[in-house]
């Protein structure tokens, strides 16, 4: 039974990190109808930035609390800046091009960013500094759920609530929902659509950066290639929940996290990634609109 609970908890942790990345996919898709292939790379850059900042600070002897805060903020800032720049360079000029064009451009961006980090830093796996200490009060249940799991779950919950608030009640949130429904109409009622799109990329990237920081400190190592797999998995989660739907992304991520956790725990860990990919292929074939998504009607 303990094993089951352990797997359940680690599944939830995985799922909540997928959710942080999946939200970026789903938000961008909702607004401009593009699969942002480079999103996984934005997450990787977030992890790398927090790695660099945290390591530098720890070498210079800063206290742990300061390191965590500064690394988190830096990751969010730089990831957002990358997300913003990627949109301006690779997607904005192609907003009226045939559908294949921004998709190819996105794949190009993904490859570009991956290799940029590879060349600027290294291809080796790097040890990520331990940012989340083992809490003393967690001792009795430490064998089923670790401290970092708890921190991850709490952080994700807070971030989700903040995002919900932002989208439901703020001006930019309302503008985002309006643009997602009908871009032309949003433009006509005076919404600055370019700014809304930029905001979407910035918010999505910041979420991914937080995800990057959390997972890097959870797993304990990073590498330039982590964005690719994480990106595809988060995308799977977004599609599973129904791409374009924010609650869908969270639901899909949790389901994916739990599925992976149980499948690797009870079946085999060799095929961990195969489960996710197969799930993706199956959903797209049998229910492309996902669990909470709307089916698309063709306009003729």
């Amino acid at each position, binding site marked *: 039974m303990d094993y089951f609970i352990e797997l359940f908890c680690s599944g939830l942790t995985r799922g909540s990190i997928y959710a942080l990345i999946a939200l970026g996919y789903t938000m961008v898709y909702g607004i401009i109808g593009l*699969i942002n292939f480079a999103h996984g790379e934005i997450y990787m850059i977030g992890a790398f930035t927090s790695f660099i900042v945290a390591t*530098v600070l720890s070498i210079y002897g800063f206290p742990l609390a300061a390191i965590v805060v500064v690394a988190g903020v830096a990751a969010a800032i730089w990831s957002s*800046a990358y997300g913003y720049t990627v949109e301006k360079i690779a997607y904005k000029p192609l907003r009226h091009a045939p559908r294949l064009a921004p998709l190819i*451009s996105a*794949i190009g961006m993904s490859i*570009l960013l991956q290799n940029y980090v590879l060349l600027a830093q290294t291809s080796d796996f790097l040890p990520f500094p331990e940012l989340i200490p083992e809490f003393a009060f967690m001792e009795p249940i430490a064998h089923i759920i670790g401290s970092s799991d708890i921190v991850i779950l709490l952080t994700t919950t807070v971030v989700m609530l903040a995002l919900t608030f932002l989208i439901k009640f703020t001006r930019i949130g309302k503008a985002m929902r309006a643009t997602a429904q009908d871009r032309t109409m949003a433009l006509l009622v005076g919404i600055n659509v370019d700014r809304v799109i930029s905001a979407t990329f910035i918010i999505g990237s910041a979420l991914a950066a937080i995800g990057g920081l959390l997972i890097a400190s959870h797993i304990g190592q990073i590498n330039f290639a982590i964005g690719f797999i994480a990106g595809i998995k988060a995308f799977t989660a977004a599609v599973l929940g129904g791409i374009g739907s924010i609650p869908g992304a969270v639901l899909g991520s949790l389901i994916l996290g739990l599925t992976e956790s149980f499948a690797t725990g009870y079946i085999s860990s060799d095929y961990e990634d195969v489960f996710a990919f197969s799930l993706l292929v199956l959903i*797209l074939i049998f229910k492309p609109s996902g669990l909470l998504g709307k089916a698309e009607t063709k306009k003729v």
Partner: protein
Amino acid sequence: MITVKEVKKSLLVSLWFVFLTFPLMVIKVNPYERTVSWRWSNMLYVAIGTFVISLLAKAWFVRKERRMARQQDSCRSRTPIIQKILQRPGYRYPLAAFLLGAALAFPQLFSTYQANIMTTALMYIVLGLGLNIVVGVAGLLDLGYVAFYAVGAYSYALLNLHFGMGFWTVLPIGGLLAALFGVLLGFPVLRLRGDYLAIVTLGFGEIIRLILENWNAFSKGPSGISNISRPGFFGMEMSLDQAMIYMYYLMIGLLLVTIFVVNRLQDSRLGRAWLALREDEIACQAMGIDKTRTKLIAFSLGAFWAGLIGVIFAAKTTFVNPASFTFMESAIILSIVVLGGMGSIVGVILGALILVLLPEYLRALSEYRMLAFGAILVAMMIFKPEGLIAGVRRVYCYQGRKRNTALKNDE
């Protein structure tokens, strides 16, 4: 041509990139020795590099706008010089004959090592031409193309290992097996929208690779299969050099066949239907085109070619392992098609030669190979989506009612 305002803007862009690249380009930490190195010189390179690129991009857009304006005045489209040469049959055949002669003489003039590199380039040309049917002509973004390549390679490796089957027997089998995989995958997924198709094929490619990596009993896992026989030539014994040169001529032969077939396919009822599908699926269906079937044919034909080259790859290197079939391989082939020009045979050939030979000969650049591929995909979409050499539409002539015959110009 470039105003002060634009220079100022470019300076801002450059400043932004200095900020953007600061943590990754400037700081480098060594977590084991706990040291930090500050690489300030990189900041300077970034500043200068982005400033120049930004100015060039601006200048390009200005020029493009002017050209558009001119074109509207004169109502004539400008065709690039290469295209003009290609369109004239008078130049075309001598040029083709010259190229073929040069290709045939190549191994005699240069070393076997060079011929070997050329063989690789030729393989990428054929892979590009195969993917071109799928992406360039039919507009189906297939990101898992490498999976079919792997199917071909592994079918030769395994059939050779277990049953001792020879290259020439397996060549068609590998192609057909890959095509079969194409049909099996294509049947359910080709109904999907373009971007979903891209993701599913990407996922499929990864699944195939992961299975090859983990199913040790079947594929010998990450260590791969070695000692695969080279292709035979009527039972002749060949030295390594001879075998490589033989491989080269074999690829030239396959390339010629491929060009012939792809050219004929593009210029046929099927080819027209693919082009039309790329543009508007609903209109196509309303014109009586069976969407799924037509796509499936394109998809499996592309897979067939990947399978053929897979077999050749296994025979050339005499060794296969899953590491040769990563997503990056698909990305390289896609870059070839995009750079060369979607739907254009000459374009794909040129694209493959540039992308395979440049990093091969400029060793210093080979480190930046993948970076460049990514940049090419983005830059081509923004600046020149039709590629280096755009596909040319055929002109058909009809000689009036009396003689119900028509003369055809070639492309």
